[in-house]
C-alpha cells in the first residue's frame, strides 16, 4: 500500500440515497477513486479508496491522505445528492423532457 493511498468508509441510508444514485456518482468518480458499494439491509456501505488521495480531490500529488480522504468523501456525497435529485426530477418531468429530446433528434436526423 502506498503511503499516500487513502480510504474512507461511508454508511448511507438507502431510504435517502438510492442505490442508483450512488452507482451513478461512483461512475463519475471512477477516474479519481475506487468505490465499492455494499448493500446491507437498510443501509449502503460505501468504501472510497484513492491511489493518490491528494490528486484525486483536486489537491497536490502526494498530499497527506488522512486530511484529504474526508474531503473526497464529502465531494462524493455531493455528487450522490446531485444524481439523486436528477432521479427525483425524472420521476416528474420525464414526459416533457422526452418530448423535447425526441423532437430535437428527429429534426436533426431529417425526420418530421
Amino acid at each position, binding site marked *: 500500500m502506498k503511503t499516500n493511498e487513502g480510504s474512507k468508509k461511508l454508511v448511507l441510508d438507502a431510504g435517502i440515497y438510492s442505490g442508483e444514485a450512488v452507482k451513478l456518482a461512483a*461512475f*463519475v*468518480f471512477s*477516474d*479519481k477513486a475506487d468505490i465499492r458499494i455494499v448493500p446491507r439491509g437498510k443501509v449502503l456501505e460505501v468504501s472510497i479508496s484513492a491511489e493518490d488521495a491528494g490528486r484525486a480531490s483536486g489537491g497536490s500529488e502526494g498530499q497527506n491522505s488522512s486530511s484529504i480522504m474526508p474531503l473526497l468523501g464529502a465531494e462524493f456525497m*455531493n*455528487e450522490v445528492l*446531485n444524481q439523486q*435529485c*436528477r432521479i*427525483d*426530477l*425524472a420521476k416528474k*418531468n*420525464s414526459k*416533457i*423532457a422526452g418530448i*423535447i*429530446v425526441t*423532437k*430535437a*433528434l428527429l*429534426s*436533426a*436526423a*431529417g425526420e418530421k
Partner: protein
Amino acid sequence: MAQKQAAKKTDKSMALPSKRSPAGKTAKSRSVLPQALWRKIGANYLLTNDSGHYAWLKEKDFALVTAGKMTERDPLFGELAAKGFVRNRLDFNDLASKWKKKNSYLYYGPSLHILVLTLRCNHKCLYCQSAAGGAGAKHTDMTAEIARKSVDLAFNSPNPAITIEFQGGEPLLNWEVLKSAAAYARKKAKITGKELQLALVSNFSLMNAEKAEFLLRHEVSICTSLDGPRALHDKNRVCASGSSYADTVKWIKYFQARHEKQVPEYRVFKPSALLTVSRYSLRSHKEIVDEYVRLGLEDIFIRPLAPIGYAKRLWDTIGYDAKDFAAFYFKSLDYILKLNKRGVVIKEKMAAMMLDKIVNFRDPGYLDARCPCGAAIGQLAYNYNGDIYTCDEGRMVGWEGDDLFRIGNVFKDGYKKLMTCPTTKVCVVSSNLEAQPACARCAYKPYCGVCPVYNYETQGSLWGNMPANDRCGLFKGIFDALFTLLRDPGKAAILKKWVAK
C-alpha cells in the same frame, strides 16, 4: 355560468380550448398560477414562464400570486394575465407561438459547420482552445479532399440555411484548401438551393490584398479577435512576430473601408471582432470598449474564458470565477449603455442575443445557450483529418486524448449516422434543461443552456452539477445584469433598440 365552466375546464381537461378562456365573472375570483419559475433578486422576484414572458413582483405580490390569492382587482392582474401568469386567462395560441419561435432550432438540423483547416498557427494565445500547433506542423493541414467531403456532409443537414466557418489554428496557413472549399461550397449552394453563409475566423497576420479580394468575392464574412488596446491584446495573444495588434487593426480597417464601398457584384459584410476575457482584462473594461469604439466596430462580443485546451493548463494565471466575470460584464454593459446615451453606436453581442429571446421571443441562433445545446444537432466540427466532433470544444477534448465527443469521420460515416450515434444522443439528453434539477427550477431556463463538454471537463460528467458549476454562475451573472438593467426605462429603451427589427 358558461364562462365559469370554461374556466373550470382549463383546470382538469386535456381537451383544452385553443382560444383565450375568460375568467369567471366575479371580481373576487382567484387566479391560480400556471407553471412559472422565479428568482429573488434583491428585494424583488423575477417571474418567468416557458414561453419566455417575465414579470417583476414585490415580495408581497409574489406571496399573493404563488398562493393563488391575486384577484382581478389587483393592479398587476392585467399584466400577469397578458403574460401567461394567470391560469384561467391563458392565450394558448399566443404562448404556443412564442415558445415555438424561441425554440425554432428544434425543427432543424445543424446550421454551423466548422472546418478546422489546420492546427498550425503563428500565434500562441494564452487561452487557445483550438489546440494550435506550431507553424511547421504541416501534417495537421486539412486536404482538399477532406474539405470537399466535409462540405458535402454539411449540405446533408436538413437545415435550409447553413454556415460554413473556416477555423484553425490559423486557417490562412492552409490557403489553397480554403479557396477550393469556399468555391466548392458556393457551387454546391447554387445547385442545391440551400442558403449558404461562409465565414472566416483569422488573426489576420497572413492576410494580404489578394486573399482579401478572394474572400470578398466569395462573400466570406470576416471575423477576428480583438482583446483590447495594444498592450492587453498582445499580452493575451502572443505572436511570434512580436505584435498581433498591428495586423489585427490594419485589416479591420481595410475590410471596413471595403464595406463602405459596396460593389454590385457581391456583398461585403462588416468585419467583426471577438473579445476573450482573461484575468488581465478584468480591470480594463473601459479601455477595451473604448478600443472597439475607436476602431469603429459596432459590436463587441464579451466572451468568458472556458477551462478547455491551453486555458485549462494556465487557469491559475489567466482564469477567474463566475463572480469576477459577472462584475466585469455588468460594468462593461453599463459603460456601453452610457456610450449609447451619448450617441455612440456600439452594442454587446451576448446581450443582444439574450435580449432577442427575452424581448422578441426569437431564437438568435446562439448554440451555447439553448435547450438542448447545439452539440451535433446544431453544429458540427470537422477536424483536419476528417474526424467529426459534436462541436469545437469537443474537438479540443479529443486533442487532449479523450475522443468521447468524436462522432464520426467524413470517409466512413454518413450524416444520419452522426445524428443518431450514442454520443449525439447523450449530449442532447444531458443538456436538456428539463432534466437538470437546478435548471428545471431556474427563472432563466427559458433563455439559457448548459454545455456537456464544459461539464465533462470541469466536473467529470456530461450532466455536471449545476450548483457548483461556474458556467452556470457566469450565465446567471449575465442574466442578472440584463434583467436588472431592463428595469431602468432609459436603459431598457437602448437595449431593446439593439434587437429591434
